């Protein structure tokens, strides 16, 4: 077995939390059950990985099998990577029957015709997701297994989720191969990025709980905001206001859990509006400024701002439109026309 393959397998096993190693190796299926029985999964990870490499040596593992283990790891822990969303456009004609073998063939052919040194692996999952792992090389060097890009494509949708590696220069080639293989016309990057792959899917497939307009002129009387304390000596003077905030929040955010994104970025290219007496900028050019919101779970924290008394309800639509518009990177320019204000570019 190749030295580099052994090292790669060893490093991949080390990434896995110790309690999960056995299950993941079983999913991989490259080592037999009897072989797995011989490994003590309670020793330190360093030793476990050595034992696993030993067994792989016996089975003569090659890079293709090692790559499958890597896909399995990334499928279970996708949140370690940052994912961007891309949307493909068809010419608008009939929807063709999706042929998986054709797709794989065309993809590999297209990619290899431009760059010989790539390792390409596919793995299909039950939810119609096709995972593609690509390790990039250069015309002169072998593929670097540690510089990989991942693509998740749901064949019934025009959306592709890509986690590119540091080698951004290969992105156009990757996009081209996807378009050709899937019979679409072009592909564009959406302004939507996050660590949580499932949340990105929730947003573009509209799987999160949305607010549906129901005709209800007065709020339902039975809806009881749970009393914060059973002590009757505490009287909430602003109960009406609190309930209004709850209603507005529910209208905007819906009832269910929010998709998980970590950032929202607003690039402002608007004019600086200052007190005329301050005379800060006499040149009338746009004041370039970047506002970035970050949080372990941005949408949930926005949802709890008004009830916590930290912001007025309703919040700015620039913040609340994130799931509906399926974007978290915005460019705000000056609105040209009679009404001063700002307008969000598409």
């Amino acid at each position, binding site marked *: 077995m190749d030295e580099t393959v052994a090292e790669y397998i060893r490093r991949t096993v080390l990434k896995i939390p110790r309690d999960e190693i056995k299950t993941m190796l079983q999913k991989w299926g490259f080592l037999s059950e009897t072989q797995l029985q011989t490994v003590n999964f309670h020793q330190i990870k360093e030793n476990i990985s050595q034992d696993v490499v030993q067994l792989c040596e016996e089975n003569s593992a090659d890079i293709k099998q090692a790559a499958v283990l890597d896909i399995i790891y990334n499928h279970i822990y996708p949140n370690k990577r940052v994912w961007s969303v891309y949307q493909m456009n068809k010419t608008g004609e009939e929807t063709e029957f999706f042929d998986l073998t054709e797709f794989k063939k065309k993809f590999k052919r297209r990619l290899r015709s431009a760059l010989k040194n790539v390792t390409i692996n596919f793995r299909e999952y039950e939810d119609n997701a096709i995972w593609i792992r690509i390790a990039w090389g250069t015309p002169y060097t072998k593929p670097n297994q540690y510089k990989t890009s991942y693509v998740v494509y749901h064949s019934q949708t025009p959306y592709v989720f890509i986690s590119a590696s540091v080698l951004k220069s290969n992105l156009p080639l990757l996009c081209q191969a996807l378009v050709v293989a899937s019979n679409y016309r072009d592909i564009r990057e959406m302004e939507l990025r996050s660590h949580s792959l499932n949340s990105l899917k929730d947003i573009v497939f509209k799987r999160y709980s949305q607010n549906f307009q129901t005709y209800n002129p007065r709020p339902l009387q039975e809806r009881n905001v749970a009393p914060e304390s059973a002590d009757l000596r505490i009287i909430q003077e*602003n109960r009406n206001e609190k309930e209004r905030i709850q209603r507005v929040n529910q209208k905007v955010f819906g009832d269910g859990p929010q998709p998980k994104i970590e950032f929202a970025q607003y690039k402002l290219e608007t004019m600086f509006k200052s007190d005329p007496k301050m005379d800060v900028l006499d040149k009338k050019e746009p004041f370039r400024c970047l506002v970035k919101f970050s949080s372990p779970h941005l949408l949930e924290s926005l949802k709890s701002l008004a009830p916590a008394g*930290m912001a007025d309800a309703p919040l700015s639509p620039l913040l609340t439109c994130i799931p509906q518009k399926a974007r978290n990177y915005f460019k705000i320019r000056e609105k040209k026309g009679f009404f001063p204000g700002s307008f969000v570019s598409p």
Partner: protein
Amino acid sequence: HLATSLPLPSERDHLRPRIDLIVFMIDIKSKYSLQNVEASLAHVDANFFLGKVCFLVTGVGRVNYCSVETNAIWKLGEVYCSPVLFCELELEGIRVATAQRLLRMLQICAGHIPGVSALSFGTLMRNSADD
């Protein structure tokens, strides 16, 4: 009675008892909280500032998250001639001690302690803070 801002909603006026003490809570982690208190102060009758108003600053335990300058708060206390208390609600011991202090102040302001008036107690608190 808990309120998020002043003035109090007028529809409950008839249900409210006499107000003996107003405690304005400022969260040191939120500038919004200070702004809210400053805006609400404008709605308080001048008579309350004779010892029946107090500022309670919360969240002082988390030094890294302070958004409001303590100078601004001291100044507020000076301008409105009212004492400023600091506390940390997340710690049970301090929470209980602060509650006991406020309760004591309330007893004085309501006139339940003979010989001590709200005004004299307020002056006492402010003078000791200057040391």
